[in-house]
């Protein structure tokens, strides 16, 4: 893993998803707002406020050239994130660059997933459920899911759309399993549930569901 990816993952693990995403946005260069293939962006508020150019799969354009529609949601604003939509410009995107970005998003999500696993372990410990075999099996599945994503992303081959869909699907599944184990606390908007939701939104905006 190149150092900047490692940074994004670590920041997301230690300081939360938004910190990891900020670092990733920083890798694009200053004042750049990344849009996904559908013309949506999901970024930290500071990025949305300061960006002057819009990034569509590596192709930069003047940000003020097209109208932007802000999409508000209380979960987003509470987390310090902003969602935007604007028309997708005509012309091709640079597929490699899109895949590069989706790879970065996967590392950010994986960092947040690691934090969720720790939170989950702590919760299960207070509930004296760590020795429960059903729970142990589910935790092992979740950890295996994280290791699989790690292996996929570090596999050495160039990331393909199929590889990235698989990596993101696996992270979503792992997070869902972990948040179920976290109990209803994992459903709270001011707790780990919010991070799981935002992580899914990132995958949705920058990759979309199964093609």
């Amino acid at each position, binding site marked *: 893993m190149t150092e900047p990816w490692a940074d994004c993952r670590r920041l997301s693990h230690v300081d939360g998803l938004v910190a990891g995403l900020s670092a990733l946005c920083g890798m694009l260069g200053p004042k750049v707002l990344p849009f*996904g*293939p*559908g*013309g*949506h962006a*999901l970024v930290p508020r500071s990025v949305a406020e300061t960006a002057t150019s819009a990034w569509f799969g590596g192709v930069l354009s003047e940000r003020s050239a097209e109208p932007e529609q802000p*999409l508000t949601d*209380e*979960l987003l604003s509470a987390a310090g994130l902003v*969602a935007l*939509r604007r028309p997708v410009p005509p012309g091709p995107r640079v597929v490699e660059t899109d895949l590069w970005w989706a790879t970065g998003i996967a590392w950010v999500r994986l960092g947040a997933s690691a934090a969720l696993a720790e939170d989950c372990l702590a919760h299960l410990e*207070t*509930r004296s459920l760590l020795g429960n075999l*059903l*729970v142990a099996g*589910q935790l092992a599945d979740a950890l295996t899911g994280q290791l699989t994503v790690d292996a996929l992303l570090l596999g050495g081959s160039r990331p393909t759309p199929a590889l990235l869909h698989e990596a993101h699907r696996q992270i*979503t599944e792992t997070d*869902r399993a972990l*948040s*179920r184990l976290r*109990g*209803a606390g994992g*459903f*709270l*908007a*001011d707790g780990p*549930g*919010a991070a*799981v*939701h935002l992580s*899914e*939104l990132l995958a*949705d*905006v*920058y*990759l*979309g*569901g*199964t093609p």
Partner: protein
Amino acid sequence: MIVLDDRLCALRARSAEWAADLRAIALDLDRDPDLIRRHLNLPVIEHIGLFQYPRRFHPRPLVVDGHRFHGDSALEHVVCFEELAAGDIGALIAAPGAPMAGPLVALLGDDDQQEAFFGRLLAEHTWTFLALTEPGGGSATDRLATTIEDLTLSGAKRYIGNATRSGIGVVFARSGPGPLGIRAVLVHGDDPGFSATALPTVGLRAALLSQVDLRGVPLDRSRLLGEHMSAARRGTWSWVRVFNRIRPAVAAMALGIARAAYDYVRTNRHALSPAERDRLAALGVRIDGVRQLVWRSAVAVDADPADGHLASAAKACATSLAEDAAAAALGFFGAGARLDHPLLDKLARDARGTEFMEGTGNVQKLAVYHHLARRRRDHG
């Protein structure tokens, strides 16, 4: 295979009509759960409230195409609740009435308690709650820390639906050691020492999940449910029966979310590729299969309220289906689907909450396993 008779088909069709009224307010309620107060005059809201009342407190049963419904069979519930939840599960849960506490009071309450409880619900729109889960111990009854000592209730409950707006509810607490020491008591929203605070949730926001604090709530004997029953019957014996009856309805709600997601794709995505058509068809078949299981679980509980293993299987299955169906539906709309299709996003968020209602997947799995183990012991 179970095929609905004319009577249940009529109920299903009426419920589907009502579902449209719930759908119309779904996203608004998700933003502001209190808006339910503006919609209390919808016929559907009134009937949801009455569906779980004992017959003698039913002033006018629902009549559809000449068929009368008191809502006292689990099969009626699942048929109706799938449709209503396909409209909006949030609005369904946010409706006043006693879907969970009602059956408990009907089973454990003496005549005066039932009169007071259901009488109050009939007199005015009243929300109710049922509080079992605790902050430290989940819903594990062996860890219940809420106590009744000298007719005083103390402790805390968490993730309790509708508690901040409820007029009355049932709280589980411990008055002595062991399973026989657990009691259900009636608590009023304006009791001294009672307070409820809403918790922000990712989904099912209209349900107003709450933290309930019980700081020395004074009780008198009229609040203790099951006083007229033997200690063995008012404890686990009765609750198992009540929860067995509620569980198929919760499964039906999860099924309704899956149906809503599936219908959304059918209505909003045209010109599907052959592969997409196959994917959607496979989802439809899975939904039909789970519906059969949910119906069978309701028939089983109607036949024997002590037999809840099918209900557990149905609940676990329907919850996974709801999550998978919402995710699959989003996959039909490309990148940014969650932002462009708020209803699908809501279905995905709501689906996650069904995992915890009426017991998590693990708890249901254990119930199914215990049934298997018992059968082997008894017949093997």
